[in-house]
C-alpha cells in the first residue's frame, strides 16, 4: 500500500491508470486523483486493460459532460470503462440516448414519484425497526449482512412485488451483475457464466411479468414494464439489461451507503457525537454520506464528434470517463472535501447521483431509506462499535463493501 502511495506522485503522469480495480478494493485511489486534479484534470490514459480513455477528475468538467448528452453518448459504448463483452451485450435505458432512453425511463420513474414515496415510508420504517430491534448486543456481527443487505433486499422485493421468501435471489443477481469476473470471490468467473445467471434471473422475472401483463396495471416495476408501451415488447437481452439496471440501481448503491455511512461516522467520532446531540442533522447527514461514499465510482461516455474539453481535444469515438469519486473530492467545488462533515451548508451538491438526463431515478428513495435508518438507529443504538474497516469489492464501477464487523455494546 505504501509503495502505491509513493507511486502516485513519482510515476510519469501518462502512466497513471485509475481504472485498476485494485485501487478501489485497497482504498488507495486518493493520491492518484489528487495528482490528476492538480496536473491533468482531463487526462489521457493511453494504455489500460480497457484500452485508451480520458479521465475527468474535476467537478466542473464532469458536469459539462453530464449535460451534453448529444456529444457524450451513453449508447455508443455503454456506461462503464470496461465494454460489455462482444456477443453478450445487455441493453438497458441507462445505456441509451434519447429518444429511446426517455421513453423507457418514463415507464418506471413514477414508482419513485413523491406521492408514492410518501406511501412507502411507513412500510420502510416498520421493517427498519424490526431489523434494528433484532440486532444482537455485545456480540460481533456483520453489519452488511444483518442490516444493509437485509433492508435493501426487502425494498427491492417490494419494488418488484417479488415473492418474499425468494427475495435473497435478488441480492444474488445484483451481486452477479456487478461483479468483476476476475475477482476470486465473485459469484461467477466468466462473462458467459454471468450472462447465463442473468438470463436465469430474466426467466424467473418473465414468469411474474407475464402474470402481471394479464392483470390490471399496478404499482410495481414488473407490472409497469409489462404495461408500458415503450417496454412491453422488449427483446430478451433488453429485458435482462433493464432488470439488471433496476436491481443494481435499487439495491447495491443504497446497501453500500448504509455500510459506508456507519463507517464514516465511526471514523469521525466528533461528527457522530454531533449527530447524537442533534438528530435533526440527519437531513444533512444523508446527502453527506452519499457524497462521501460515492457508491458509483464512475460513469463512462463516448464522444459522438470531436470536441474540446478542459483545453484538451477529444476525438469522435474516444472513451470519456467521469470519475465521480474524484469530482466529489474536488476542493474547487466542495469545501474541505476529504472531511466528513455532517452539517455542510449545501450537502446536496455532489455528483453521486449523476446529473443530466441520466440522473439517478431512485435518488429520493435512496435518501428516504437512509434517513429512516438513521432516525430509527440513533434512539435504539446510539453507540455502534466498528471493529474493522469494511472489506471492499474488486471493482472500478461499484464502490462495494462486502462485510464490516460491528458490535453494539450493552447499555
Amino acid at each position, binding site marked *: 500500500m505504501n509503495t502505491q502511495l509513493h507511486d502516485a506522485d513519482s510515476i510519469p503522469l501518462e502512466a497513471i491508470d485509475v481504472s485498476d480495480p485494485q485501487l478501489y478494493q485497497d482504498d488507495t485511489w486518493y493520491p492518484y486523483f489528487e495528482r490528476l486534479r492538480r496536473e491533468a484534470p482531463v487526462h489521457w490514459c493511453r494504455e489500460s486493460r480497457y484500452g485508451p480513455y480520458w479521465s475527468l477528475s474535476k467537478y466542473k468538467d464532469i458536469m459539462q459532460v453530464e449535460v451534453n448528452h448529444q456529444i457524450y453518448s451513453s449508447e455508443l459504448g455503454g456506461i462503464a470503462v470496461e465494454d460489455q463483452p462482444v456477443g453478450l451485450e445487455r441493453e438497458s435505458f441507462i445505456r441509451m440516448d434519447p429518444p429511446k432512453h*426517455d421513453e423507457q*425511463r*418514463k415507464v418506471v420513474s*413514477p414508482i419513485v414519484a413523491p406521492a408514492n414515496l410518501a406511501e412507502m415510508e411507513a412500510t420502510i420504517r416498520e421493517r427498519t425497526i424490526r431489523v434494528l430491534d433484532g440486532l444482537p448486543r455485545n456480540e460481533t456481527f456483520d453489519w452488511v449482512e444483518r442490516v444493509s443487505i437485509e433492508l435493501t433486499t426487502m425494498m427491492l422485493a417490494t419494488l418488484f412485488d417479488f415473492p418474499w421468501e425468494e427475495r435473497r435471489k435478488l441480492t444474488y443477481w445484483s451481486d452477479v451483475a456487478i461483479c468483476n469476473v476476475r475477482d476470486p470471490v465473485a459469484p461467477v468467473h466468466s462473462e458467459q457464466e454471468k450472462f447465463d445467471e442473468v438470463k436465469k434471473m430474466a426467466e424467473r422475472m418473465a414468469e411474474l411479468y407475464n402474470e402481471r401483463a394479464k392483470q390490471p396495471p399496478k404499482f410495481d416495476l414488473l407490472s409497469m414494464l409489462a404495461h408500458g408501451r415503450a417496454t412491453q415488447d422488449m427483446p430478451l437481452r433488453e429485458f435482462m439489461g433493464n432488470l439488471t439496471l433496476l436491481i443494481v440501481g435499487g439495491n447495491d448503491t443504497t446497501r453500500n451507503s448504509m455500510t459506508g455511512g456507519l463507517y464514516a461516522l465511526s471514523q469521525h467520532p466528533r461528527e457522530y457525537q454531533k449527530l447524537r446531540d442533534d438528530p435533526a442533522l440527519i437531513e444533512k447527514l444523508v446527502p453527506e454520506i452519499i457524497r462521501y461514499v460515492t457508491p458509483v465510482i464512475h460513469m463512462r461516455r463516448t464522444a459522438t464528434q470531436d470536441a474540446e474539453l478542459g483545453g484538451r481535444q477529444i476525438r469522435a469515438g474516444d472513451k470519456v470517463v467521469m470519475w465521480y469519486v474524484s469530482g466529489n473530492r474536488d476542493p474547487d467545488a466542495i469545501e474541505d472535501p476529504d472531511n466528513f462533515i455532517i452539517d455542510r451548508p449545501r450537502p*446536496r451538491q455532489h455528483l453521486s447521483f449523476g446529473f443530466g438526463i441520466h440522473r439517478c431515478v431512485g435518488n429520493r428513495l435512496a435518501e428516504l431509506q437512509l434517513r429512516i435508518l438513521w432516525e430509527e438507529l440513533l434512539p435504539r443504538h446510539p453507540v455502534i462499535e466498528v471493529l474493522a474497516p469494511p472489506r471492499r469489492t474488486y471493482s472500478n464501477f461499484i464502490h462495494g463493501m462486502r462485510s464490516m464487523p460491528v458490535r453494539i455494546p450493552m447499555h
Partner: protein
Amino acid sequence: MPKVTYIEYNDTAHVVEVPIGLSVMRGAVNNNVPGIDADCGGECACATCHVYVDPAWLDKTGPPVPGSQEASMLSFAAEAKFNSRLSCQIAMREELGGLIVRMPQGQH
C-alpha cells in the same frame, strides 16, 4: 427591487426580493425558502428547482424552449404540468416583479 412569491406545497407563502439578473431559483435558495433544492446549483442538470408558474404569469415567463435541456429535464420531473418551469432558467427581469410560483410535492 422586484418581488417573487414562492408558495410551498403546504400553501405557505414566502415573498422575497430578487435582484434583476438573478435566477428565480437563486432567489429562493439565497433566502432559505424551503421546497427548492437546486442540487446541481443552477446548471439545468437535475430538475430539483421545479416550480409551477402561476398561469397569470405564463405569458411573461414563457414556456421552456422546445428541445432545450430544460424541456428535456422537465420531461423527467415527477408531476410536470403545462406551467412547469425549472426556476434556475428564469432570470429575474423588471417585468417579472410580482411573479408567483408554486412548488411541487417533492423535488425529483
